């Protein structure tokens, strides 16, 4: 499963022009033992894209099986393993490390004008923990798979004899990889900010990563203890979740969701950070309401720890607790709404440039809009009793996670692609693939909302015949979306070899990473960059000669511009 960015030959050929972090050292060892946050970011990126491919294949197999009510291509046990592995791979291997570890690792130090994260060795160690965790998860596939669903609910997970222990240990190890990334980012943002970059003159992507890191550090350990107890229950029959021995299965659900709901904010917050960067840069206008967007990230991080019970409204949880959780769930929706309104306001009277990253930002607004608003149905107690554990929930979290986080991830990938690889991808193919993904996605998951409200339960191998047409539309949509992503992979890989040489600032961004070369030198900046307001684009002009933007050297001192910090 481990994957290095191709043999050194490719990396070398990609960026012959001048010494940069790719061409500075050659050979496989320069990658395996690198301490450079940029190389670690690239290694994470390649591994995460492989995981996305693997998870996507499981998704297509599930959708193919659901073409017909009874058996289509696999039996019930295999189907149960498919949706479990789809969940485990997509969540633990793709979407949680996705934006923070791949894009965050690469961009965060450069955005701070720093030379590396605070603990480079810990950074490499967390990558190898990710690889080890991935190996454990894949090992489970080899030894008969796991059929408990990614939620590992007891008593089923402690009594089935599929290789649950391997996957659980894999998730435990991946948890530590996530914790160490979080620790690294918090210390870097606190201690390595350049003089002049106060908290409210920091790019919003860093605010989002900071809020995400808080959740990673404070929520993941509880997943650690939950999985440890699960393994203790399976191997030593500790009896802590076994009702016959005085244990309490609903207590496991509390333990599990105390991590797993903040985990969905670990996924969405970095995506919101990318959104703030994309919308501001491609509207060529400072973000609207900088302080509100920044503080709403931290607000989401705090409230997200209080709402986990809305996963358990029908699980035997007491009505009193359900009432409290429902109210707090509605409170956590407010900061997300504030962010969306601020992004829309940013586009007002801007100069909107519909490049591929901006297209994915618009998809985020559309799809996360639907995802967020359907959350209102699930938060309302009376409606949740009807739609809980049905396809309505499946559609909701795919709209927020796939429609929100994956769109922002792909948008961010395109946005920083020139900076990471030094190459420009083809805009035409980019926009085409984006359209295909958008159409396919909506066809796949909007039908599932209707399936859900009509009572189609989740994780069903056989389903009543009257749902067949919905499922067939959904499967068609899934194939369309897959086609869109394969097309994306195609032109991105093509750009590695034939892409136009990227200028330092292809999009006109004002944050620091656009002030170093593409791809950046090993130590990021030859001279420490002037630290100004991250969204002051007044002095950035488009220069036709190099096909990119340059910062005009205007007389007034760097930081005097109308910063959003007022």
């Amino acid at each position, binding site marked *: 499963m481990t994957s290095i960015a191709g043999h050194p030959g490719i990396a070398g050929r990609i960026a012959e022009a001048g010494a940069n972090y790719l061409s500075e050292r050659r050979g496989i060892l320069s990658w395996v033992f690198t301490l450079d946050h940029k190389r670690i970011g690239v290694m994470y990126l390649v591994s995460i894209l492989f995981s996305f491919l693997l998870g996507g294949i499981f998704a297509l197999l599930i959708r193919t099986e659901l073409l017909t009510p009874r058996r289509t291509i696999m039996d019930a046990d295999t189907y149960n393993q498919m949706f479990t592995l789809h969940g485990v791979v997509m969540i633990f291997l793709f979407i949680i490390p996705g934006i923070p570890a791949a894009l965050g690792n690469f961009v965060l130090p450069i955005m701070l004008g720093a030379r590396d994260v605070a603990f480079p060795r810990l950074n490499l160690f967390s990558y190898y923990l990710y690889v080890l965790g991935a190996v454990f998860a894949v090992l489970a596939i080899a030894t008969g798979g796991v059929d408990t669903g990614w939620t590992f*609910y007891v008593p089923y997970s402690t009594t089935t004899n599929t290789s649950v222990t391997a996957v659980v240990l894999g998730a435990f190890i991946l948890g530590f990889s996530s914790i160490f990334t979080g620790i690294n980012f918090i210390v870097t943002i606190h201690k390595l900010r350049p003089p002049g970059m106060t908290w409210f003159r920091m790019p919003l992507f860093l605010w989002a990563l900071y809020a995400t890191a808080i959740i990673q550090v404070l929520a993941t350990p509880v997943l650690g203890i939950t999985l440890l107890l699960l393994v203790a229950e399976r191997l030593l029959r500790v009896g802590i979740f076994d009702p016959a021995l005085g244990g309490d*299965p609903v207590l496991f659900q509390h333990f599990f969701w105390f991590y797993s709901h903040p985990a969905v904010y670990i996924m969405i917050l970095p995506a919101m950070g990318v959104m703030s960067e994309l919308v501001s840069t491609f509207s060529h206008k400072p973000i609207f309401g900088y302080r509100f967007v920044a503080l709403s990230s931290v607000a989401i991080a705090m409230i997200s720890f209080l709402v986990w019970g809305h996963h358990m409204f029908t699980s035997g949880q007491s009505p009193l607790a359900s009432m409290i959780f429902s109210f707090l769930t509605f409170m956590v929706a407010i900061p997300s*709404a504030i962010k969306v309104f601020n992004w829309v306001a940013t586009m007002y009277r801007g100069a909107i440039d519909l490049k591929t990253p901006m297209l994915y930002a618009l998809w985020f607004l559309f799809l996360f*809009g639907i995802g967020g608003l359907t959350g209102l149905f699930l938060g309302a107690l*009376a409606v949740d009793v009807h739609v809980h554990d049905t396809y309505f929930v499946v559609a909701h979290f795919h709209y927020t996670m796939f429609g929100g986080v994956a769109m922002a991830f792909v948008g961010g990938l395109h946005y920083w692609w020139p900076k990471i690889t030094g190459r420009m991808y083809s805009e035409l193919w980019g926009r085409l693939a984006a359209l295909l993904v958008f159409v396919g996605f909506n066809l796949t998951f909007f039908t599932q909302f209707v399936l859900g409200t009509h009572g189609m339960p989740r994780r069903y191998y056989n389903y009543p015949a009257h749902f067949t047409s919905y499922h067939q539309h959904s499967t068609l949509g899934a194939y369309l979306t897959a086609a869109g992503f394969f097309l994306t992979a195609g032109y991105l890989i093509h750009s590695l070899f034939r892409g136009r040489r990227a200028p330092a600032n292809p999009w006109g961004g004002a944050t620091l990473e656009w002030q170093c070369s593409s791809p950046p030198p090993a130590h990021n900046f030859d001279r420490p960059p002037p630290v100004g307001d991250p969204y002051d684009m007044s002095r950035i002009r488009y220069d036709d000669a190099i096909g990119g933007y340059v910062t005009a050297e205007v007389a007034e001192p760097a930081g005097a511009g109308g910063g959003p910090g007022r």
Partner: protein
Amino acid sequence: MATATGTGLLAQGGPTFWMPPQGSTGASAVDWAFYLIYYIAVFFFLVIVGLTAIFVVRYRGRRGARPEGAPSSHLAVELTWTLIPTVVVIVIFTVGLGGFMDISFAPLNAYEIQVVGQKWKWFFQYPNGYVDSDLHVPEGRPVRLVLSSQDVVHSLYIPAFRVKMDAVPGRYTKMWFHATRPGEYDLYCAEYCGTGHSDMVARAVVHPAGQFEKWLESAGNWVEAVPPAEAGRILTVGRPDGSGGRGCTQCHRVDGQAHIGPPLNGLFGHEVTLADGMRVVADENYLRESLIDPQAKIVAGYQAVMPTYKGRLKEREITAIIEYLKSIAGPREPARGAQ
């Protein structure tokens, strides 16, 4: 279009674009809450996507164009789009809570049915002790279900009544509904429980007013009306439509195949080797004890996983099952043990 038909049909409880037909009093309250949230969500969605579309078209700038510039922060605007959503969500919360209170607390005069979920079959025990694999309820009277599970977490879900509650091992969980329209509705297991999770489907049958007692009476003693061996066969293997069975065939086969439990044919009157090496003749007492206290004697080579049927099989039913086992006992002379 969809929303119009939605509200139109809401009154008679027919199926709308979003919701299945309403089979209970609670269903209309849930649908009303659903459509309220639906309209609020559609409104906000149109505002966000509409504004975005307008701005993208209106302020579309070629590469290098200069923005017309606008203030990048405005406290009053920020406060408005913080307070308005807060008020809206509090309204939605209150509506949701109202419906939930009705769902959570059953009226005192509710007709109580015990429900036991086990790996991939529901059992409904009516007050007169009769156990059926389908839920039969009277129309126009509140019914309270008391749920528990034999093994893993299941969840009883009847979309038409808009009710769902997990069946958790080790405790009783309760749910209730007041059925309003006679008919047959789907009853699913909504919490993943293994291989047969999607087969754990039963029917919720609503009998018109007055006919429920008649049905219960006749169903209660169908065992007498049928010759014992035939009744035993139905109890063991179940009717062609799958009803009436007690789940025996999930573990035992009647065609000589070993499965989770030993095969039931060629058993009665033959010798059986137990796990501790003893050899016993499978007579009436052995069979009766295997039903009441299955752990007492375990056939060699099988797991001791059979749950007890004590309290879930009436005396008449046990004798009927034993009669059936006699009928498939095979040749009289004591052949070697089954394996």
